[in-house]
């Protein structure tokens, strides 16, 4: 057998296929206590079949795997609605400090005053930024924050003996978690239409809002990257029928210091710390989704809430709390990073974040609008939704364009979302990217548009230059192989 000479060839064997009996990567210390009796052998198991590899093999295996990824540290990542901004390195360092990384969640409050003070300060800052002063950092992700928000809405209505309210009104442009969370909260989902400008259809909302409306779930800015011009009217319609307004804060990166959600009539919102507040996405979590509410609703917040008392800082359970939505106090290490981010930017820096995010998105939109259709022909906020409908007619789908971007080292935009836009490509550059990067992206997008006619196969078959070409997702789903097995 001849060994092929390609430095770029990657050994993708799994750990169990690299395992050699007797190899080890780690040694435990010997026991320093007198030997204790083992339980009856009926309790005990045979070996656990874990890999036997050396320490270098562990490091090399995972290091090589990491190089197969796109990431913010290595690539431009204009993924709409995901806010792929720079994740400052100092935040990771601070979250790993002794005294923060090694404290136990059930330690007495008096031994963790610094930690609880940090949580309280972050609560205060998030309350100030959103204009909704009641804050719980417990939710472990945006979807949990959203679910907590719905539990709060239900608890509020129930406390007023107004339990017939079982409807959540959700725009047709909403993210899938909105209806999924509403269903978990036992609410019936009613969909409100978008008008031809991409706004919530005010007339339709007025028709749908009634004495059964528990909550109206609105993403601000919308998933089309637009700020609802009728926002004050929308919130009033809901309040007039006795419902509450929940804002999905996934797109909060557009609003820092520019407007407070609480001022607009929003009663409840969540924020994704892993988006707006720069904590790493980690390849799909961990996230953190604090929930913010009006003073009136604060007594329903999930536990715990950090409070300052005369005796110091404590983790408290609000008077009519909706309870525990997870094990302990939320994603503390993520909260540390988010607080460090807010402290590093300060007031002016936070305002600058949103200003630059908005300018960058509009710049891309202005430079691409002659080649790509716009979901809505008006200024956007922090992201712009393009449509590849024109390219589709010429034989190349949005998916192909997204895949072709990968060949240029640019991550694909969010595709086919929101669902109301044909061939949607949602682009969110964030404030982190320089004008040179934006110009490069614009040039690549224009070149791909040319390729649709000049070299369509290049686009259809992309990516060409990555560790793998397109993968057979149909077979993966038909005949699932979900783990290593010996064979």
């Amino acid at each position: 057998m001849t060994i092929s000479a390609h430095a770029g060839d990657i050994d993708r064997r799994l750990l169990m296929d690299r395992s050699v009996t007797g190899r080890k990567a780690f040694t435990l210390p010997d026991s320093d206590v007198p030997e204790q009796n083992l339980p009856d052998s009926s309790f005990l198991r045979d070996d656990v079949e874990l890999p036997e590899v050396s320490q270098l093999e562990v490091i090399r295996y995972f290091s090589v795997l990491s190089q197969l990824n796109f990431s913010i540290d290595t690539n431009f990542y204009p993924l709409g609605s995901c806010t792929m901004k720079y994740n400052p390195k100092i935040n990771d360092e601070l979250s790993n400090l002794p005294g923060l990384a090694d404290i136990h969640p059930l330690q007495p409050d008096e031994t963790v005053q610094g930690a609880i003070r940090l949580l309280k300060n972050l609560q205060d800052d998030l309350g100030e930024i959103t204009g909704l002063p009641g804050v719980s950092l417990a939710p472990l992700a945006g979807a949990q924050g959203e679910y907590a928000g719905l539990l709060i809405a239900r608890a509020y209505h129930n406390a007023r003996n107004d339990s017939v309210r079982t409807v959540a009104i959700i725009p047709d442009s909403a993210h899938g978690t909105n209806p999924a969370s509403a269903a978990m909260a036992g609410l019936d989902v009613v969909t409100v239409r978008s008008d031809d400008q991409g706004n919530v259809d005010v007339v339709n909302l007025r028709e749908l809002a009634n004495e059964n409306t528990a909550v109206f779930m609105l993403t601000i800015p919308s998933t089309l990257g637009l700020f609802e011009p009728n926002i004050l009217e929308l919130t009033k319609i809901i309040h007039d029928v006795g419902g509450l307004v929940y804002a999905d804060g996934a797109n909060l990166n557009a609003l820092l210091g520019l407007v407070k959600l609480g001022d607009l009539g929003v009663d409840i919102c969540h924020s994704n710390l892993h988006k707006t507040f720069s904590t790493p996405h980690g390849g799909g979590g961990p996230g953190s989704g604090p929930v913010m509410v009006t003073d009136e609703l604060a007594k329903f917040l999930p536990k715990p809430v950090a409070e300052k008392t005369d005796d110091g800082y404590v983790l408290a359970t609000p008077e009519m709390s909706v309870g525990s939505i997870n094990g302990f106090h939320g994603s503390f290490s993520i909260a540390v990073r988010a607080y460090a981010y807010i402290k590093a930017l300060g007031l002016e820096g936070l305002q600058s974040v949103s200003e630059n995010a908005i300018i960058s998105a509009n710049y891309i939109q202005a430079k691409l609008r002659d080649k790509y259709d716009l979901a809505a022909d008006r200024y956007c906020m922090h992201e712009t939704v393009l449509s590849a409908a024109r390219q589709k007619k010429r034989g190349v789908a949005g998916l192909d364009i997204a895949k072709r971007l990968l060949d240029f080292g640019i991550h694909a935009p969010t595709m086919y979302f929101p669902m109301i836009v044909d061939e949607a490509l949602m682009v969110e550059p964030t404030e982190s990217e320089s004008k040179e990067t934006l110009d490069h992206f614009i040039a690549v997008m224009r070149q791909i548009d040319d390729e649709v006619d000049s070299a369509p196969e290049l686009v259809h078959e992309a990516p060409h230059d990555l560790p793998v070409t397109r993968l057979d997702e149909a077979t993966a789903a038909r005949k699932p192989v979900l783990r290593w097995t010996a064979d």
Partner: protein
Amino acid sequence: MYPDDLKYSKEHEWVRMNGNIAEIGVTVFAQESLGDVVFVDLPDVGTDVAQFAKFGEIESVKAVSDLFSPVGGKIVEVNAAAIDSPEVVNEEPYGTGWLIKVELADASQLDDLMDSATYQPTLE
């Protein structure tokens, strides 16, 4: 594409009658719209289904659709091949890719369905 011996529903299912047994599947239009079918969820034999009621689900990689029975009656057979190898729904939607067989309760229900010539224009 749309054989003349079948009847069609507006939800893009077809029916083939054999005596009083209705064989039911999805049309070429339905399977092409879905893309690669990866999973079908079918009811137990012996259960009843009403005309135009949901009897199962069909999934592609990134979409899921409800299946509606064009006629009502007792389900007498489900296609194990479609469950084990869902690709047959793409490959032979009117043949090995059939989904369920129903003992027709009321033959007049067939009148609520379209023939090929009526169904095809609805796809445009």
